């Protein structure tokens, strides 16, 4: 197949890098950060090359150990795998942000483990995004989840461990329900390869498959924090170190959504039963998530807590888009996976910089920070405007597509919910901006704190720029996603 070994670089480098981190950083823990950044630069390069290949030559596969599926494990690079791009981008920027952050916020002994865990988490996500084998999917899911649980607890602050434990229990249940579903599918078909599975699922008993789909949906929606299953998220995402919050909120919850997309890919191809019940459920849960997530966020005082609830709201968008099952709906959901990752990373990193510089977390205390830290605050403002979906920022396109999808599917009600949900979201973001810019400071000394260090500023500014650019050049992610969605829906004539 003569494709070069970039897939290996993509998957293996972060794992090796993580394995070597504690050794290299034994004497001087601060080295760990630079090492991790270096390692991840290589990974990002690989991701870039692979994405370029996907975009020029179309999907391709890499066979681990040379064993063709169904014998061995296949890495599948298709349009949805292009999410490695966003994983690497945000991972890289978060790592860069971590350099200064970790020095300040973590006990020195934990720093090497922190960076090792971040690398493992990102590597796990890359693996999850590209693997074509459902059991391998589970393995990578565990790598990224385990490191995620630990990263939540790593500061050891306040309720960090409790939040991590809650996250761990919920996460483990979801992983198990996913593994159970894998078991069902395996028992029915005897294969673990996704493409193969889609073929072989065509002529089996539909009911067990339905149960498996239910278990998968349950598992992935816990990971994605869809509303009734979200209880772990606010604590975990607000207590984690800010760069980790960016990764968790921007990427790790999206892993659940990506899993759903993979499942849909298989199901649409297999056409084993009517999905409308599942779709309707997702749609409603999505709508409820949007509204309730926004309402919860409105009453928060802690800035990171607010952002965490806003993630729940935004996950609602994505699930609604998926559930609409119309072309534009799914396009909107997929684009929102990318854009929300960018936006939420901007916001969390920005919030992290504010907390790092001022030491305050509450909106009340942060008043007037817009004058003290103009660049960071401006980036947060862009992020906020973007997440509400005010044009011409990244968030707008998603809203537009999902609304279009709702109308396409003949469900105007959901379009209305979506758009008004966005307004709810705006209500709490405007509180934030008011506090930053239009209110006299509660603590006058806040005006004296300087702008964040440069390694923190660069990621924030780059992400904020991307929030704007992705709105203006919305075609770029779309050029990946549209063919993929068209392909995906082709069997049902969408």
């Amino acid at each position, binding site marked *: 197949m003569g494709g070069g070994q970039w897939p290996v670089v993509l998957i293996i480098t972060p794992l090796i890098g993580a394995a070597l981190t504690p050794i290299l950083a034994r004497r001087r823990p601060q080295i760990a950060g630079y090492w991790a950044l270096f390692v991840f630069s290589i990974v990002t390069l690989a991701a870039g090359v692979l994405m370029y290949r996907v975009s020029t030559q179309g999907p391709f596969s890499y066979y681990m150990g040379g064993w063709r599926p169904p014998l061995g494990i296949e890495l599948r690079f298709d349009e949805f795998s292009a999410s490695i791009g966003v994983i690497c981008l945000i991972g890289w920027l978060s790592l860069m942000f971590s350099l200064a952050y970790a020095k300040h916020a973590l006990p020195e002994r934990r720093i090497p483990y922190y960076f090792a865990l971040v690398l493992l988490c990102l590597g796990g996500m890359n693996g999850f995004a590209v693997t074509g084998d459902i*059991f391998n999917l589970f*393995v990578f899911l*565990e790598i990224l989840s*385990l490191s995620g*649980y*630990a990263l939540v*607890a790593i500061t*050891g602050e306040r*309720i960090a*461990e*409790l939040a*991590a*434990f809650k996250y*761990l*229990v919920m996460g*483990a*249940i979801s992983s*198990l329900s996913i*593994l*159970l579903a*894998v*078991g069902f599918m*395996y*028992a029915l078909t005897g294969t673990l390869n996704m493409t193969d599975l889609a073929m072989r699922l065509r002529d089996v008993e539909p009911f067990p498959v339905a149960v498996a789909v239910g278990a998968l949906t349950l598992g992935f929606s816990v990971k994605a924090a869809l509303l009734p299953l979200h209880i772990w998220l606010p*604590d975990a995402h607000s207590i984690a170190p800010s760069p980790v919050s960016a990764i968790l909120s921007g990427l790790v919850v999206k892993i659940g959504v990506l899993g759903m997309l993979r499942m849909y890919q298989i199901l649409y191809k297999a056409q084993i039963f009517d999905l409308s019940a599942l779709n309707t459920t997702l749609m409603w849960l999505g709508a409820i998530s949007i509204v309730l997530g926004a309402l919860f966020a409105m009453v928060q005082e802690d800035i990171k807590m607010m952002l965490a609830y806003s993630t729940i709201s935004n996950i609602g968008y994505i699930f609604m888009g998926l559930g609409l099952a119309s072309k534009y709906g799914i396009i909107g959901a997929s684009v929102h996976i990318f854009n929300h990752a960018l936006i939420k990373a901007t916001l969390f990193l920005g919030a992290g910089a504010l907390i790092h510089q001022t030491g305050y977390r509450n909106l009340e205390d942060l008043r007037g920070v817009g004058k003290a830290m103009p660049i960071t605050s401006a980036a947060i403002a862009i992020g906020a405007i973007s997440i509400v979906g005010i044009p011409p920022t990244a968030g707008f396109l998603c809203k537009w597509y999902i609304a279009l999808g709702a109308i396409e599917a003949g469900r105007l009600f959901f379009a209305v919910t979506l758009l008004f949900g966005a307004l709810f979201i705006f209500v709490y973001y405007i509180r934030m901006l008011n506090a930053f810019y239009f209110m006299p400071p509660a603590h006058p000394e806040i005006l004296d704190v300087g702008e964040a260090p440069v390694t923190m500023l660069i990621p924030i500014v780059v992400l904020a720029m991307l929030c704007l650019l992705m709105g203006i050049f919305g075609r770029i992610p779309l050029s990946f996603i549209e063919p993929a969605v068209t392909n995906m829906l082709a069997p049902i004539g969408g």
Partner: protein
Amino acid sequence: MRALWTNIDYVASVILFLIGLYAIMVKGNLIKKLMGLNIMETAVFAFVMSAGIVTDGDAPIMGAGAKPPFANPLPQGLILTGIVVALSTSALALSLIIRIYRQYGTIESDDLWGVE
């Protein structure tokens, strides 16, 4: 019903799965929750293994004198991985429990919610 009887292995793992889930949802003690989680894990492993059962299958080792039918090697490989994953989860969870106890002096979730 008959089908259930034939698939009694699956049924057993489903029951174990639910027992584990019950423990997680009802028990207040974090270690107990974790034990429930472990039971759930083994239940899922049993489930996957059941998919590969071959009546009177021998260990799939092709030494001299080995004769079919052999047991299905694939689920075994998967479960080997699964067991390690389960161990990892338990190790991390127990560490968290130890830390929680050090900080709050309790591992009963009823007491811990007050802490937040």
